[in-house]
């Protein structure tokens, strides 16, 4: 029983990080209608940025997260204005190609600058934990979970209640009407992509705190984010939380009861199931 409880907690904590990873991807996908295949690479860049700030400048990784976010926002904004805007009206296949190209370029640049060695963001407290009854809670993972949930809720409120947020949602729902009301899609698109990149950056910093960074972690992380975005749906950031948590718990339980080698079978199996039963996501509108 204690074991099951511990495994559930592990899964939920893992799911929080998953949700944060997928949040930026879902946002960009929903608004710009671009499946950003470079999303995982942006997570990787965020990881390296936080690692640099920690090891070279001595800034605590959690304090470095806002700096990483701002840097990645600028990078995302520039990528959208300089590159993606060229193909914004093109068929989806072109945007897939261009983001895939970006992924390759970012990975190779990272190897060029940082080598293929593994890096871990490892402050002294990285392995700390505390006990809650029979359950062991890793401190950093709990903090990462709180940040992930906090950012998701903040994103939700931002989209719901601010002028820019409403502009973003309006562009996603009906671009022509949004333009008639004075929304400039150019600016909104760049802002959205910047936000997506900033979220990826924070996720990367947290990922480096609990796992390891190398130039090639991007691909698998994009795939995982993709699954979560599909499970959760693109309409609503809260759906991404549900998707992330569901995936984290299912993976952990699969590892316990079926065997750790079948985790990916479970997660991609769920993807197929959701696509069949609820194609708009668990919290999405039903058709």
């Amino acid at each position, binding site marked *: 029983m204690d074991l099951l409880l511990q495994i559930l907690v592990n899964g939920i904590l893992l799911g929080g990080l998953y949700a944060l990873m997928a949040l930026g991807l879902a946002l960009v996908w929903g608004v710009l209608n671009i499946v950003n295949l470079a999303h995982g690479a942006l997570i990787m860049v965020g990881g390296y940025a936080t690692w640099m700030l920690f090891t070279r400048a001595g800034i605590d990784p959690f304090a470095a997260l806002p700096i990483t976010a701002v840097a990645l926002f600028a990078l995302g904004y520039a990528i959208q204005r300089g590159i993606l805007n060229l193909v914004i009206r093109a068929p989806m296949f072109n945007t897939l190609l261009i983001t895939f190209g970006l992924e390759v370029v970012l990975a190779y640049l990272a190897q060029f600058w940082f080598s293929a060695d593994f890096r*871990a963001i490892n402050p002294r407290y990285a392995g700390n934990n505390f*006990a809650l009854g029979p359950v*062991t809670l890793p401190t950093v993972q709990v903090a990462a979970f709180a940040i992930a949930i906090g950012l998701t809720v903040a994103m939700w409120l931002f989209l719901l209640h601010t002028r820019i947020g409403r502009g973003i949602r309006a562009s996603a729902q009906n671009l022509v009407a949004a333009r008639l009301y004075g929304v400039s899609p150019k600016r909104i698109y760049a802002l959205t992509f910047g936000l997506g990149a900033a979220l990826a950056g924070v996720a990367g910093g947290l990922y480096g705190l609990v796992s390891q960074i*190398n130039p090639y972690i991007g691909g698998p992380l994009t795939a995982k984010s993709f699954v979560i975005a599909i499970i959760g749906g693109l309409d609503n950031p809260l759906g991404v939380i549900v998707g992330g948590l569901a995936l984290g718990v299912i993976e952990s339980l699969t590892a316990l009861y079926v065997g750790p080698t*079948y985790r990916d079978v479970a997660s991609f199996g769920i993807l197929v199931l959701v696509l069949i039963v609820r194609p708009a996501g668990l919290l999405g509108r039903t058709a």
Partner: protein
Amino acid sequence: MYRASLLLAAGLLAAGPAAAQTVTFGASTQLTGPVANTGRYYKDAYQFAIDRINAEGGVKVGAKQEKLAVRILDNQSDVNLSVRQYVQLLSQDKVDFLLGGFASNFILADSSIAEKNQVPMVQGGGASDQIYSRGYKYIFGTLAPASDYFGSTIEAMRKLDPKPQKVALLYADDSFDVSVAKGTRDLLKKAGFDVVIDERYSSNASDFSSLLSRIKSASVDAVLMACHETEGLNFIRQAKSLDVEPKMYSLTVGVPSADFRQALGEDANGASGMTAWLPSPQLKDPWFGDAQKFAQDWKKRFGYEPDYHAAAGVAAVEAYVKAIEAAGSTDHAKVRDALAKVDFDSLYGHIKFGPTGQIDLPQTMVQIQHDAVVPIFSGERFVGKMQYPLLAWDKR
């Protein structure tokens, strides 16, 4: 497919004995992609060995003195690309002999190209017993058999006090790790250990929380983990954060590598592993002096410490030179037969291939103490003091 078979046919026609002034080796290894940080050992090892041997005069083929050269391609950590590149090396680049890249799953596929074309391949990157169980004649390997990686560790465990009772065996689902697990399972059984967890996980897994929680709940004393570096790294970090403290744990890959210790910092302390090679001055070498000098020269040239992958790569080139000189020719069949008979001391150890083509070297059990790799058990006796049982995580 059609084009590939055409290339193969061309390769077969072109693979006759070469009459060049230089002996050219060909290899495909990982210079980019997820395995690039281990793949680089082979590129650097081949280049280093060839430069040194050329500086000493090169290789004597019959009465002629010839130079060595190597053509290295980047397989981008992709097995399929690697196989195509070996076809290219033989058919288009017309290299004389093949060397290998990293990891058993690559060698398993690449060695079929060598065998089909009857060109020898000596490789220091694949240890899986699977590679040598297919009756191939042209594949030789300088890594000790995967099935015996934990041999010295289990021997040491029998002599520890208090003897570990419950053991967990974890392994990734790739060719190397499955071979390790198969051999280790038998060894554990023979030694009478109680294996309470025997579990396979997916290769490149990043989350070990479920396994770790099971290990904790079963109060496992010793964890033996067949893994590659990223998996080992994640395992150790998560073990600390979930407060899982077995009396000892040992990893097949990672512990002897410098970047593994750098990434983990103090958390690496206490991790056990094994290596078939240590840079000791007792290992004499005809070209490099001895293993210690080799390690110093390597560090000076490449800026990082060599580990057993590097030494195994250099040994592959040296084995070729010995074999070509013994055969007195670069004829593939003759060199193959000479390789089967090589018998010499090198910086890597005593090089002599068994009947299947694989070398047999004892593994030394090592442990990371104070950020350095310390030899613990040589296969017969303790040569260092092991930290056992491990201290609490925050005291390491």
